């Protein structure tokens, strides 16, 4: 493929799209109500809706990508134990796709509508919630090991961490209201100050990355080095 297709056309598309969105944000008055009142608004809105459509395709792309990855893993695995989780992934994915398609209200034929609700409520919900809720145990163990006054910084972390846990404990909120005032002060002044510094630095970095991407210096998103 020539450099024109691999590099120049994608960079030109990025530049034009980025410029339209930038101009839409900078030049279109905040009070504008309808897209056709400004060409920048019109093209900005159109591009945004295209991006949402593309995001749908990305979900499909993810399915293809994960299928290829696990198909390769099944072919290369030496034992059934190694193959098991990949095969299980295909079984579950197939079940969700079939039940999802024929249980979806917008499909013309929905014989599996009840199954879809069942899968969501009794399979997906408990599994998702279990994975998430199991974090509490890791966090408890992590706090016990991390909150040690080994150094001055460690002691500061211990004190603030200990007070923060007390702050979030309803019992202490009721009987030791001074904790609320202490943590509120820490959150309002030192923590906000530190976070503002981090966020402003990150924002400046994002602006620079945006400018580099727009002018074609940053080409990492093209997926290859030229």
């Amino acid at each position, binding site marked *: 493929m020539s450099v024109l297709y691999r590099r120049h056309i994608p960079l030109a598309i990025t530049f034009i799209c980025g410029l339209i969105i930038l101009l839409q944000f900078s030049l279109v008055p905040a009070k504008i109500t309808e897209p056709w009142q400004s060409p920048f608004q019109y093209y900005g809105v159109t591009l945004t809706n295209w*991006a949402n459509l593309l995001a749908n395709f990305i979900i499909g792309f993810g399915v293809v990508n994960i299928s290829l990855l696990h198909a390769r893993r099944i072919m290369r695995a030496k034992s059934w134990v190694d193959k098991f989780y990949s095969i299980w992934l295909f079984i579950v994915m197939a079940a969700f796709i079939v039940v999802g398609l024929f249980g979806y209200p917008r499909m013309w034929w929905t014989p599996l509508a009840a199954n879809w609700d069942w899968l969501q409520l009794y399979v997906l919900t408990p599994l998702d919630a279990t994975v998430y809720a199991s974090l509490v145990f890791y966090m408890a163990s992590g706090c016990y090991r991390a909150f040690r006054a080994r150094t001055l910084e460690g002691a500061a972390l211990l004190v603030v961490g200990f007070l923060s846990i007390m702050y979030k404990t309803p019992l202490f909120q009721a009987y030791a209201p001074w904790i609320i005032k202490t943590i509120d002060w820490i959150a309002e002044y030192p*923590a906000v100050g530190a976070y503002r510094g981090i966020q402003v630095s990150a924002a400046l970095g994002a602006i620079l990355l945006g400018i580099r991407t727009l002018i074609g210096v940053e080409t990492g998103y093209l997926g290859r080095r030229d």
Partner: protein
Amino acid sequence: MAGKSIIDVLENIPREIIYTIVLIAMAIPLIRPLGLPVPVSEPIRKWYNEIESLPPGSIVLVSHCSLGSYPAFDSMQVATLHHLFSRPVKLVFFSIDATGLAVYDILLSKVDPKAYGKVYGVDYFHIGFIPGGETAMKALAEDFKAAVPSDYKGTPISQIPMAANIRNIHDFTALICFTSAGETSIGWIRQWIVVRPEIKYLCCVLDMMLPTMRPYYEAKQVTVLVGSAPGGEYEFLLGKPGSGIKKADAFTGAQLILLVFIIIGNIAAIAKRMGKGGVR
């Protein structure tokens, strides 16, 4: 643990023991509530007052959480929906996550809009999941009907009476977001609050995300900022006790145990260092 002193053991308690004790400390109050006091904190009071002060006919966008984080937001979301449905406001539900539609079904199985005289399409409707994250938020802000051709059941938006009055961000009075994702809570600020600062932004995030969101709250870009944990306080304030009040006791149990573990770990570490010849 053979050959280890008691101090060594206390300094490095096996994680299996910690997990078991934390599990017991959480399970007991859930099975048999302790009836500990539930103080109503200032952010929850503010959250309540902001919903209470929404003018009649206001259109509110409710961006609910994903399925994975649902247990964390359960009580806050249910209590908020009870409150919102009891007010003369119109609700637009939105899911920023593909699994969010299941959350909407669960929420409506706990809060019956009909009990408040609310009718689907007239007082509330769900626009479904729109992929894209921040671009979806931007699209909703700019041209609502172009971004949402139909509701989550496939009914064309033109057939939903309530949607006739919604063109873009300027028709919304408030935005209520429940999320465990930083890019979502901050994304709404970037795509909505920056464009229209008059919108009331009520943001409920995981408690560990509060420090990240606090600068936006101090900058008045977030009207009310609360964590997901104090759902019990809101239930208490509304007079609708639910799972949140039970969870408050479980939080107390688990967090007290955690504090005890931290104290034990530090005492053991200090004792060990002193035994080796003083604090370094």
